């Protein structure tokens, strides 16, 4: 990494491809994706970590990319909605969102899908949520209230929640 007082040059892996970026130190990961890599699938709904529309996977864990400074991702691996699946090869959660109409305007949708991927992985690792009855249990069963709780950081103003729940249920083990 090289840096001046205003900008830094660094490498980050995005959707499997190493990217050499030279960015203003104030640039968030979200703006780096949208404005510098033309990956506009991650959406800016609030820029304050309050809506979840910008959710991407950082080393496999879901993060609000508006709350991550791009320079801090040096050496890390980012997966955005564009890296999860394509029109020709959809990720099972993308397909489930289509099958269950888990979207309307579509603006929260990439964040919902990335968040769902992260949530399923967290449950698989046995990480509890506020809806987990026994936080010491090794295995988490993702019932409806677990999914609703774990997906509540992703707002959908169109109100697709019922269908988002059905979509995640369809791919949840």
């Amino acid at each position, binding site marked *: 990494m090289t840096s001046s007082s205003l900008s830094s040059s660094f490498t980050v892996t995005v959707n499997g491809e190493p990217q050499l970026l030279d960015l203003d130190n104030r640039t968030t990961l979200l703006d780096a994706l949208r404005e510098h890599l033309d990956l506009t*699938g991650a959406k800016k709904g609030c820029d304050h970590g*309050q809506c979840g529309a910008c959710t991407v996977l950082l080393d496999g864990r879901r993060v609000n990319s508006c709350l991550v400074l791009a320079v801090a991702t040096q050496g890390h691996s980012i997966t955005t909605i564009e890296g999860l699946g394509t029109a020709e090869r959809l990720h099972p959660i993308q397909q489930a969102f289509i099958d269950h109409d888990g979207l309307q*305007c579509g603006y929260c949708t990439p964040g919902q899908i990335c968040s769902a991927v992260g949530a399923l992985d967290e449950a698989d690792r046995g990480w509890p949520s506020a*809806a987990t009855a026994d936080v010491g249990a090794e295995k988490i069963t993702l019932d409806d209230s677990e999914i609703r709780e774990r997906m*509540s950081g992703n707002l959908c103003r169109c*109100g697709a929640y019922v*269908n988002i729940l059905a979509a995640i249920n369809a791919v949840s083990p």
Partner: protein
Amino acid sequence: MTSTLDPATTRTPLMGQGINRLDAIAKVTGEARYSGEYPLDGMIYGWVVQAPIAKGRIRDISPASTLSMPGVLAVLDYRNAPRLSDAGDSELLLLQGDRVYYRGEAVAVVLAQSLEQARAGADALDVSYLAESHDVLLRADHPDMYTPELVNPNFPSASNVGDVDAALAAAEVVIDRVYATPAEHNNPMEPHATTAHWNGDTLLVFDSNQGASSVQMSLCRLFDLPRSAVQVKSEYVGGGFGAKGSARPPVVLASMAARLLGRPVRVTLTRQQMFAMVGYRTPTIQQVRLGSDWSGRLQALDHLAYSQTSKILEFAEQTAVVSRMMYATPNLRTAHRLLPLDVPTPRWMRAPGEAPGSFALESAMDELAQACNVDPIELRIRNEPDLEPDSGRPFSSRNLVACLREGARRFGWDDRDPRPAIRQDGRWRIGSGMASSTYPARNAPSTCQVQARSDGTFEVRITASDIGTGARTALTQIAADALRVELDRVELRIGDSDFGPAMIAGGSMGTASWSWAVVKACRDLLGQLDMHSGAVPAGGLLARADTKDDVAAQADVTRHAFGAQFLEVAVDIRTGEVRVPRMIGVFAAGHIVNARTARSQLIGGMIMGLGMALLEESLMDLRFGDYLNHDLAGYHVASNADVRSIEVSWIDEQDDQTNPSGIKGIGEIGIVGTAAAIANAVWHATGRRQRTLPIRPDRVIS
């Protein structure tokens, strides 16, 4: 030459089928591009600077320090902004003078090479003000309260049938209550964004809106340009709910800035800026008086609504208009009063009028049912009118009673014990409630072009807008049916003002209005094809339609969709928490075009109604004259965990007096009645009436 027509007998109509959203793949892969996502060469970022005072004047703007910052190219303010002409919306006359009319009004735009530089420049911009004292609180006894001539969109402000006062004086039962609803903000997930580009004297904007031709018209008037010089594109729109129903400040600011710089400019609002700059639902104070006999038959209905507007533009919400058509009564009076304040202008938010108005009316009906000891469904059936009570006009169709009966059956209402506050489940008090829903079913003129291509496919072009409604899919189904071909032979193009004038996605009129133009153009094209023996000549065939005359020639009947909502609540009377485990909505809304997207849209409306009932409230800070909780951490919309079981269904309704497809529109009816049904259920659970929204924990336990 290819034969394009399938024999009509071989195909099943696509209308009514639950076809997958045609833009679903683009949306789940992130390929769908929204208005702030078009990269243009040499594009400059604009960051809006807002006034920190609610009333006063700009004393001075000193841009020197901002202009010396890295990457900053210019500061657009009232001294260098292009002059604008009045487009009928004084809030769009931005940066035209030194007066400040509301806190959060745009006073400058800082233009820089990067988003970060523009933002830093805006933060540093030195603006001084001469503040004056402001007046920002709605109250019914304010001396400036006046009676507007018309209420949105063009209803008379007042109505009067019979002698309400005499009937109330003579009534055996009188309910006289005041209800209040707060300011609410639409908050579509996509903030308003515009990317503007001038090519000589022609303007191209990518803009997030509910109607590209409406925005085009505003830009033409503001900048004194002919229609041919302005193109507005809005292919994907991340929700609107009324907040994008007309041109809003970003499109004007971006267009002015791009003019000033001679380069493309993008202006995207922050979530916080949206609370001042793109409209909201007015707070209301409503007095409803019902007079009836002991059996609950209405003798009088009196609905008086107070709301606010700004001092620069009149927006009068039609809060009491719902009471003009809902229930039979020989004496019926409605009235509106409006208070101009030093606030941003309230505008449309999903079901303006009906959403807050029905909260009052349907709550009062529940109170009347209780007073008369009549079941709330039976009360509504006893007051079912044959003709529209206010006007005496016939309804094109009215299936409220069918919705009430079907909803009651699905919910299991017959087993309900009407007594309040007697069901306990652990820490929860359990109750159930219901309310009626309604929304007007109107049409507006639209134009459409349909082209038969020589490869046997068709291109339909219409300036429709799919803000998440499913209109893109529904209109493709309608076109394919009208052309009698399969879906994959129709390419529908929307969201481009070059396709001609059309209705916005608003007032639950979008798909209804557009479908009429689509069907008309397709029928014309079929006629042309018949003359060519069903074969398309090499150059293709084109049909154009304009429904202006058709809409004007509609019979003088009143057209509405109806519905009924039933739900269960659980109330913790210790903490005041209210949950809604089960909601059922049954609707009669004409021909449902797409069963899948319609279900989603109706559920979405009910969820916004749940938010209205329990969560949503924009709090006015009296000292600073601003909505205090202006972000998504402070302004709560329903999240996934707030929503439990929701079931939606509809009555099979044929209405041949709406439009050729029998469509009534479903964008708004889902939110109408939800809040009253929840308030009524909270009464059933706790024995306490909730007449002020939202039903916050402190209101439940106080």
